[in-house]
């Protein structure tokens, strides 16, 4: 019998449903001889899941690229602002394309890690308190909790990104450290932002974060053929389950929640949005390509791969 330890964090939520499903499918297909023990925070700190994989302390883990760009520069391309991803399927496909690129595989191989599947998240949008930013001009001086490319894009229209962890986001909002928070809908709900938010940036869609699930390469190679088939053969089904769960359970709760809490949905003029995209998308991507070429990554190629996969 094979037992894998899986390190994730927080509580069981939409974001971890593909892992739960995968464990279920693998156990079913192997008649219970290959099981996964999913630990929510017991095995490692979330920013050190890659370290744990590299050490061999556990066999599978989830992490987000933006937590530590220098550990995984290749996948941060997926966190660039305004890539124009509009569905979870698209996010899945584009992530998979980048994961399969040899440069990405090599980047993760330094951690003895093999990329298994993404955890596609919808576009981050901003929820906040106080006077809502009705036009892009109103973003000038607005404090916002946003990381990575999203934070950089927002700073280009005058917003002030301020770093707090997701667990502290609500308190930061309550205490006036930030006036607004950029999250995916499930996180806005699970971290309590919606209990106090007054407005929501309906169609800003600046980008998202990329959080892959990886396995320890040695552990993967040590599996029997039947076990490996059961694992790899279950990924698609687990992903479909995840996307269905996010769309039909999480988002089903989301829109009525906005309604019920009387949260004002702020829509932006399409013309202005195009201006913002132009202003932010180009320069941030150019800087990303420059920095990561310096690290020895085929950065332009990765960026082009993203754009071409999205059919733009």
């Amino acid at each position, binding site marked *: 019998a094979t037992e894998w330890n899986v390190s994730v964090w927080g509580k069981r939520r939409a974001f971890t449903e593909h892992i739960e499903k995968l464990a279920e499918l693998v156990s079913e297909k192997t008649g219970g001889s290959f099981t996964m023990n999913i630990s929510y925070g017991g095995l490692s700190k979330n920013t050190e899941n890659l370290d744990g994989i590299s*050490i061999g302390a556990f066999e599978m883990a989830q992490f987000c690229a933006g*937590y530590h760009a220098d550990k995984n520069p290749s996948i941060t391309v997926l966190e660039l602002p305004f890539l124009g991803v509009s569905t979870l399927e698209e996010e899945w496909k584009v992530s998979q394309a980048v994961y399969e690129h040899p440069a990405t595989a090599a980047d993760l191989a330094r951690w003895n890690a093999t990329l298994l599947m993404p955890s596609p998240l919808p576009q981050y949008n901003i929820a906040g308190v106080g006077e809502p930013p009705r036009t892009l001009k109103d973003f000038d001086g607005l404090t916002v909790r946003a990381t990575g490319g999203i934070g950089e894009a927002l700073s280009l229209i005058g917003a002030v990104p301020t770093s707090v962890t997701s667990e502290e986001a609500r308190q930061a909002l309550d205490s006036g450290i930030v006036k607004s928070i950029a999250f995916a809908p499930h996180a806005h709900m699970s971290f309590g932002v919606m209990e106090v938010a007054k407005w929501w940036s309906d169609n800003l869609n600046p980008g998202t974060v990329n959080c892959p699930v990886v396995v320890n390469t040695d552990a993967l190679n040590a599996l029997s053929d039947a076990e490996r088939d059961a694992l790899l053969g279950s990924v698609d089904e687990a992903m479909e389950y995840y996307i269905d769960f996010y769309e039909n359970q999480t988002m089903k709760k989301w829109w009525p929640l906005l309604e019920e809490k009387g949260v004002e949905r702020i829509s932006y003029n399409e013309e202005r949005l195009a201006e913002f995209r132009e202003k932010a998308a180009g320069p941030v991507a150019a800087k990303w390509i420059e920095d990561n070429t310096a690290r020895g990554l085929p950065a332009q190629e990765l960026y082009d791969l993203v754009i071409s996969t999205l059919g733009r």
Partner: protein
Amino acid sequence: MAIKASVLADDSLLSRLDRGLYRLETMFGLVSGLSVFALMILAVYSVGGRNILNSPVRGYVDWIEITMPLIAIMAVSYAQRDGVHIRMDILVSRLRGRWLWIAEFVTTLLVLLLVLLLIWGSWAHFQRSFDFAAPLWSRDSTIDIKLPIWPAKLVVPLAFSVLALRLVLQLWAYGRAILLGTDNPVAVPLIEDAATIAAREAEAVTGREDT
């Protein structure tokens, strides 16, 4: 409030080494204390920046995370020298003479073993974040302003190495006490009853009240 067990000194090589290392440890302690002070100033600046100048410090949390190992770990050996790390000495304090030094020797040896392993483990932790080939030698960075983390991770094996030296000196001192059968060994914190410790704490506090 000044917690400090008494450590005897003489002009033996051991005692001189003890005092030499203590100077280094005190320096580490001061670095740690100054870091607390810097943290306080940073917070005042951050709150001021946010509320008065409407320009929050970017990467405030990143800076705290980089500073914390200096505050929390740098002085670990300084505290070991002064016998500050808490323990339950209800049993040990009943031992006298050689039996006491044997007990101290054994637990100190265990701690040395632990610390040597932790030097290895924390060094490996540092190494994973460090890469000569990368910009800023960094293979791990903070979340917001992407500061390289390796200097903060390096503090741990550095502080533990000094602690290992301290433990070796203490083993030497306990070993010597076992051989000589003395009641008053140099270079190690002596166990005192609660009243003596309390009296010294009070003395330190009073000194300050008068200033």
